[in-house]
């Protein structure tokens, strides 16, 4: 069965092509993912990858990797990245630039903002079907919580809780503080 299983197996998948993006926001950036669904050999390797592009001042909203570590290699540009541990402390808060590698451990919250020339990266993930859990946006944990839980947990009003849940839809967004520098997609 080796011949049938491995010999003719597809070994490559292009994730650099912008038209192949899985998540895309014209103003802020995109992500393409390769996992065991679109490249089955990754099931054996138990690995996957994502290729991301953030335009200038674009923010990839806070999220955590549920079932994998993420080892990020900077392809181009610079970004400010914060990684938060279970103590609620930023155990990485700094800038990364082209050629550098940053490891984001499983379950640790991370946020990225592109600076100056935008930011491009590739992340290697230690699970063939890596899941991300967003903290903000349409599919976020905050959106899925009842308003009453948010009100009590954060000591906020119902109006504030509603804004918290519904004010933001996107995974990628452009920083409002410097929106004049918006780039075309």
């Amino acid at each position: 069965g080796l011949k049938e299983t491995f010999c003719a197996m597809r070994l490559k998948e292009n994730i650099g092509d912008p038209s192949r993006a899985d998540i895309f926001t014209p103003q802020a950036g995109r992500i393409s993912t390769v996992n065991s669904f679109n490249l089955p050999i990754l099931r054996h390797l138990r690995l996957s990858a994502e290729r991301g592009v953030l335009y200038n001042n674009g923010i990839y909203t806070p999220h955590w990797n549920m079932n994998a570590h993420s080892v990020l290699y900077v392809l181009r540009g610079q970004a400010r990245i914060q990684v938060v541990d279970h103590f609620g402390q930023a155990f990485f808060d700094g800038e990364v630039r082209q050629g550098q590698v940053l490891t984001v451990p499983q379950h640790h919250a991370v946020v990225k903002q592109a600076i100056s020339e935008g930011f491009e990266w590739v992340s290697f993930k230690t699970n063939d079907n890596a899941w991300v859990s967003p903290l903000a946006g349409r599919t976020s944990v905050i959106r899925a919580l009842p308003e009453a839980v948010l009100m009590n947990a954060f000591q906020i009003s119902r109006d504030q809780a509603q804004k918290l849940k519904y004010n933001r839809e996107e995974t990628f967004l452009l920083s409002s503080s410097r929106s004049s520098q918006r780039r075309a997609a």
Partner: protein
Amino acid sequence: RRQNECQFDNLQALEPDTRIQAEAGLIESWNPDHEQFQCAGVAVVRRTIEPNGLHLPSYTNAPQLIYIVRGRGILGTVFPGCAETFEESQRGAQGRRSRPEDRHQKLRHFREGDIVAIPAGVAYWTYNNGDQQLVSVTLLDTSNVENQLDQNPRRFYLAGNPEDEFDPEQQQHQQYQEQQGRDRSRRQRSSGNKHNIFRGLNTRFIEEAFNVDSETARRIQGQNDNRNNIIKVKGRLDLVSPLIRSSQERQREGEREETWEEEREREQQERERDWRRSPRGDYNN
């Protein structure tokens, strides 16, 4: 699991080592560094939630099995990408499109004797909606393949200003504090080691990510919040939930509130009645 971690001479029955008193409950944990737990690759926590207490949303680095020792409550889990299927109907004028009052992911009611399974990295919260203490024992399988970090149990809180239930230094602090007879809340503020995960992010990032004002962002970060891991809910937790809703409706009709057993019995009777009504002995579409 490495075999040499299981080479010890005798076994002991262990009492909890760490005790965290919160606004509406108590968290007791066994030192995960104990050789027995290292051997088994697990950590154990006992949690007591007072009536109307809410254990703040959190997730862990390992899968959990929770056994409900006493009481009842509501469990809310958050699976990324799943729909918010518990939805309050719109209250706007007829024909006018307005946002639903609230919608969130499925809630589950649990009671004494239940085993609850929570996957690694899945955020959840629990609420004691009963009239007695809710006591549960949780096992975290830190050696599970789903945990790619080390074997140290970690809980990531999404709200509040909680203490670390697995921190061995916590116990030392606690003992020291008891010896010194100092106010515990003072130590909490002064230690400043444990916060929710939003606290580690720049406040501006939170404002941008949620499109909220700076005051809301600071509250999300749990600044000046000393209620700890389990908080007392103001009034009652107003949730979109079939059981709670029907209970409220019955209250509106002037009936007394049912006990858990009465509620279950009534539901069973309603199911049997529906069954009998159906001509084919099945539910109608």
